[in-house]
């Protein structure tokens, strides 16, 4: 059952049964295991998870940025605007990357070329993908830096990345991502390395520019607060799998997976009475090379029972709300149970 707006057409992005594995010394590790989700134009989807949840590998797989070897996309489809990206030639996928789908990484310094001016790097995709002459592309770079609220854009385009602060670099990355008016932006922990106040600025900016361009946004994060402030929909990942998915408000109000419920009870909130004990999730995130059979969360789950040794399917637990828990129907109570 889809909401009205989404009935009108096929989703912009449809990931179906995506699996990505890595060959390691300890055998083949499934970093992403049968992941599916849809994303509509203009929508913001947050993929939430901890280390090893598979959230970043999912993002890299969409753009086929998985180093092979040791990695390999072993199954699934990534249908973007009607085209399966996994069957495209290298040349075809390059024409989409940085053009119709742009990516923003956690460490802008590692994705910016230190020896080229910022202006040149923003203008490059415009020149490459749009065949815009360099002079005009540089003018667009100035305009883009203005759009990401960089003061003094005309002189900033001549600066090198090391002359920028962390926040300014991330602004430059956003400008670069916007250069070709992408239909989809994937941002992988874009503000984790930034100060709290700058983090808020950059996320607000990202949300604003994607909304203005009607671009869809995939926001990869571990921060439940960021999800609550910026996401329309949420996909919670654990041990390489999607364990819960749905609209943000619905997931926060009525979580239907013990992991999601546990996460929410374990983070302190500024708007709640301080001093009371947090309710932690026992144990540690799983080792992907050594996942338990069945539900990956079962070893840490208070509700775990025999049936959890069988792998729970991601099923519709409520309208537009998916859960991969055998007990999803009994978890409808609010957080804290």
């Amino acid at each position: 059952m889809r909401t009205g707006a989404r009935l009108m057409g096929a989703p912009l992005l449809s990931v179906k049964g995506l699996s990505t594995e890595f060959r390691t010394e300890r055998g083949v590790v499934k970093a992403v295991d049968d992941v599916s989700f849809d994303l509509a134009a203009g929508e913001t989807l947050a993929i939430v998870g901890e280390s090893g949840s598979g959230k970043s590998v999912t993002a890299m797989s969409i753009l086929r940025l998985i180093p092979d070897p040791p990695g390999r996309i072993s199954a699934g489809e990534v249908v973007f605007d009607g085209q399966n990206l996994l069957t495209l030639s290298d040349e075809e996928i390059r024409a989409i990357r940085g053009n119709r789908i742009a990516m923003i990484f956690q460490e802008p310094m590692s994705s910016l070329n230190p020896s080229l001016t910022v202006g040149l790097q923003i203008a490059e995709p415009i020149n490459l993908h749009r065949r815009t002459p360099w002079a005009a592309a540089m003018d667009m770079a100035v305009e883009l830096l203005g759009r990401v609220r960089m003061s003094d854009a005309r002189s900033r385009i001549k600066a090198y990345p090391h002359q920028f602060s962390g926040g300014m670099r991330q602004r430059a990355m956003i400008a670069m991502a916007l250069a070709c008016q992408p239909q989809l932006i994937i941002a992988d922990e874009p503000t984790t390395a930034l100060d709290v106040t700058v983090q808020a600025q950059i996320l607000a900016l990202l949300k604003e520019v994607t909304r203005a361009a009607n671009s869809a946004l995939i926001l990869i994060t571990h921060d439940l607060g960021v999800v609550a402030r910026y996401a329309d929909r949420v996909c919670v990942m654990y041990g390489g799998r999607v364990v819960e998915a749905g609209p943000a408000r619905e997931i926060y109000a009525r979580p239907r997976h013990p992991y999601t419920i546990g996460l929410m009870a374990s983070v302190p909130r500024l708007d709640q009475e301080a001093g009371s004990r947090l309710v932690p999730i026992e144990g540690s995130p799983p080792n992907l090379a050594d996942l338990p059979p069945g539900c990956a969360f079962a070893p840490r789950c208070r509700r775990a029972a025999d049936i959890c040794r069988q792998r729970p399917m991601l099923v519709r637990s409520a309208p537009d709300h998916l859960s991969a828990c055998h007990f999803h129907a009994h978890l409808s109570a609010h957080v804290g149970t």
Partner: protein
Amino acid sequence: MSAPDTVLEVKDLKVHFPVMAGAVMRRQVGSVKAVDGVSFDVRRGETLGLVGESGCGKSTTGLAILKMIDITSGEVKFEGEDISSYDRSRMRPIRRRMQMVYQDPFGSLNPRMKVSEIVGEPLEVHGMASNRAAYDARVASLLDMVGLLPDMADRYPHEFSGGQRQRIGIARALALDPALIICDEPVSALDVSIQAQVVNLFQELQERLGLTYIFIAHDLAVVRHISHRIAVMYLGRIVEIAPRSELYAKPLHPYTQALLAAIPIPDPEVEASRPQQIITGEVPSAMRPPPGCRFHTRCPQVMEVCKSVDPPMRDRGGGRAVACHLYDAA
């Protein structure tokens, strides 16, 4: 005069790092005023949170209290004793009573040492275990205190998860029965689901052992949860200090307000109705802090006076103090 239950008194602490230039003729061209006139007390059994963004001096303050870096000026009194001028050897007995827990549970543990050696090393260094049996018993009880199993003593750090490694670091800090533990971002490198385990452990240990903490972190939600009082720092200064409930209910300093507004609350319903006041700009360089109030370049309520006059810390009663010209008249 300090109250008898005051563990630590810091008065006008300054830590300036010289900035040198020139390859042949090395000369000082300036200084980074990492900590520039910080004062606070910590009472026995309480947790004081130090919060702020990069370059605010919170970690440097912690290191200076432990005398792990040189103090430029100011006074640090620990359990009534002025340790400001103490050298390494005079600090030795003090260091038993003051310990540190670090952010990085991966980098701060020696990978070649067994857990029992890591936890027991301080006992040996300070001659605190009379014999092997006493040593083993103490290590076992320390592991138990932090929720690790006895058979983990013979394993090496790489065999542990991040949360367990942080427990090892805490056990080591507890080995000498310290009065004060300075915790520098002790949970920020941990996964979200693990942070609560470690935060709870800190609280349990405090209740059990009567520990005093200085809890340094950038995450105001975590700091507020664990601290009794919170000092908000900006560019080497404390701009506001308040009991935790007041700080969120009625933040006085515009920077505190900005920090609180910047932190999203994990609830879409609450977020939708929250005013989004995001301040602009980034923290200026600590080498050239702005004149007057250091926050004035980013302050949404900046006045003329703020650009030239450095606001003093003013007592607002009820354990609160703020350094802001908005409260000059009152």
